[in-house]
């Protein structure tokens, strides 16, 4: 019961193709949960189950149960509330064609916050958390789409934090970001986990090792192994896991 997210026998098919096979997994509250695995192993699909954005892929069929905040996501009448409880950052940075300020204020506005002072504080706070404030504080009215790739990625992060989610899902967030900034954001994530549950999908196994409390290893849509991060990295039960974390395939 003390879990932020529970997957109960979840399978996902895209048309005739199976992307996830009977995943049963519990993600504890206020921890960083790492998900690692080779490309096309279903990591992104797993995240899309959490806030039901898989609904927008007509070909996708989901079976099994995903429980967020004690409720089956399929049972959320107000799916927008579910999506606001979950912050999502996907690997391709997308700055909305709005100003930087409006990018970050977008979700709060949709949720009904219109007080200017409140919005300003919120926007600045989120941009600070995403390590973007110093670079854009003097040009908040510039178009978000004109930022560089790495900056847009951090803008996406700021946006995901703007609606105060209980769960933050990061999908290979550091692809476009330079190593120094990545390190800074990692520090922020370690602070953030005091307030929220973080699901960190990463193709850098060392990033999972640095940050995650627990880690799951996915391969070809199957959950191979899940456990304490240190254990996954030092004494994996499964031979496949061992080879993957040691960089022997992937």
């Amino acid at each position: 019961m003390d879990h932020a997210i529970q997957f109960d026998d979840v399978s996902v098919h895209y048309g005739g193709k199976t992307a996830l096979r009977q995943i049963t997994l519990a993600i504890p509250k206020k921890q960083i949960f790492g998900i690692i695995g080779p490309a096309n192993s279903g990591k992104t699909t797993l995240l899309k189950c959490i806030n039901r954005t898989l609904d927008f892929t007509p070909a996708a069929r989901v079976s099994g149960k995903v429980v967020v905040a004690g409720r089956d996501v399929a049972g959320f009448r107000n799916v927008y509330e579910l999506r606001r409880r979950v912050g999502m950052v996907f690997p391709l940075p997308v700055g909305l064609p709005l100003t930087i300020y409006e990018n970050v204020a977008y979700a709060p506005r949709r949720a009904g916050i219109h007080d200017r002072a409140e919005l300003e504080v919120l926007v600045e706070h989120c941009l600070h958390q995403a390590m973007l404030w110093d670079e854009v504080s003097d040009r908040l009215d510039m178009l978000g789409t004109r930022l560089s790739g790495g900056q847009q990625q951090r803008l996406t992060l700021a946006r995901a934090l703007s609606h105060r989610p209980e769960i933050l899902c990061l999908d290979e967030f550091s692809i476009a970001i330079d190593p120094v900034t990545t390190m800074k954001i990692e520090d922020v994530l370690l602070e953030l986990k005091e307030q929220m549950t973080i699901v960190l999908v990463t193709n850098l196994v060392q990033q999972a090792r640095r940050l995650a409390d627990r880690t799951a290893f996915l391969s070809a849509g199957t959950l191979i192994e899940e456990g304490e991060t240190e254990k996954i990295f030092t004494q994996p039960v499964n031979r496949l896991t061992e080879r993957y974390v040691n960089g022997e395939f992937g």
Partner: protein
Amino acid sequence: MNEPFDAKSSENQYKLLGELTVPLDDSELFTATSVEHWKQVTEKIAWFVCLLATLVLIVPMMAILTYLLVQAWPALSFSFLVENPHNYMTAGGIWAPLVGTFWLVWISLLIAAPVGVLAGVYLNEYARDNWCTRIINLAVVNLAGVPSIIHALFGVGAFVMFAGMGRSLLAASCTLAVMTLPVIITSTREALAAVPRAFREACWNLGASRWQTIRTIVLPNSISGILTGVILQVSRAAGETAPILFTGAVFFSTLPEYGIQAFFPYGLGDRCMALSMHLFTLSTQVRGVTPALQYGTAVVLIGLVLAVNSLSIGLRVYLRSRKKW
């Protein structure tokens, strides 16, 4: 002798460069091989053929416009625009048909633009990709290619007779609306489809509903394409004769020329004159019309269409200059 070779030191770079340039002299470097020679020839041919095609297009168009203008010159004046036709249409101006065309186009636009744009939004943003949607899409695309006389017959059946509008401004406008709808829907869909899906997904992930996403991101960034499609249909509606011929246009009616009455001469149930119809009448139905009068009408009609089209081009250029990604 055995010291490590440092390619970055300026001395060594000079050496590398020297070794490279020595065996190749300039003439060898810049003589085209046979493949490259052929490339240059095809490039010239392609340029010439494309230019020729453009000229084939432009020259007759300019010729027609010039000829029309020259022929119409004696008739063109301000009073030609604001006077009604007199003496069994052999004299006077084109005020009544001009106003008629204006109202026909305006009312048809008021019907077709909202319906067409919203239908395009539905088809592109909401409809699931199933056989039903595909049939609708196919129907829309095919309707765009249906000859206008068919739309006219449909208008007679549906609006004039079935809906009981009689032959009237309203029935004619509705027919024009039906004729322009398919293209408005198609161009709206294309404009919407040009907005990257990633923007929509980003909004959905932020908890925005589909409609919020459409209103805040999709429509503002596709409005230039949508408006261009709509405006181009305005000029089409202004130019067509067939759809209004049996549904509401009339050969002749006199209107007040002065005062506010002159601008609102027709009620929705009245029949009205129209420029395209007037041109047809002048050239085939009335005896003793001076050619200048006919050409003058044609020039005004073409001028109207060109003006509307340039408006749409101008709008598109302006909106594109503010493109956001």
